[in-house]
């Protein structure tokens, strides 16, 4: 499983990077699992992802809930609720 993660707004600022390619460990099957893994992986991850309720996600351009299954490969966007317009 090789996923491109892209971060936006304060998630990007807290992570210190705009995107990265990761191979999550076995057992990380859903968006919720991915967020939990990132929150425990390192300090920026803890800062960005310790409140999962504040995080929205999209898989290959489509909004996805915490229970959505991760694809074998693709782009996962992680970001706070939108405030545009």
């Amino acid at each position: 499983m090789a996923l491109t993660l892209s971060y936006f707004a304060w998630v990007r600022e807290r992570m210190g990077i705009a995107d990265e390619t990761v191979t999550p460990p076995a057992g990380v099957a859903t968006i919720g699992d991915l967020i939990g893994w990132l929150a425990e992986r390192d300090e920026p991850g803890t800062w960005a992802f310790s409140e999962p309720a504040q995080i929205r996600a999209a898989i290959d351009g489509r909004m996805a809930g915490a229970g959505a299954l991760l694809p074998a490969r693709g782009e996962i966007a992680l970001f706070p609720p939108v405030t545009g317009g």
Partner: protein
Amino acid sequence: MIRVAVGAGAIDVAAEMAAHHAGGHGASASFVGRVRGDGGLTELFLEHHPVLTPGGLEQLAAEAAARWKLAALTLIHRVGSMAPGETIVLVLASSAHRAEALAAVEFLIDRLKTDVMLWKREAFADGRVGWVEQRDGDHARAERWEQSAD
């Protein structure tokens, strides 16, 4: 005739209006949103997703066009760094009769606030910088469109 655009350049409101109005449709409604300098704001930065932001605007435009009989629709959003007074968003809708054009503009500006991938960061004269949090009022306005048939 649907025109959707997202970009970092200044929005030329007069030119967009002229092009849209050239159709001479029975009814044209518009909305222009600009950066407010409230509380000493000096810069508004609007972050976007290179694919999801234009995609979301195109989807909203298509939804409006399916919902109302529109002769023309223009939806332009600026992204990046802006100063107070500059235009953030321009919505233009034309139809034969007024109800459709007015409803489409209101629908689009309400739904833009909640459905399109855009994040606002504000910088103030006193040095404060922060990301804007989602407002409950925006969701309440956007949800009105779920409940009513028009």
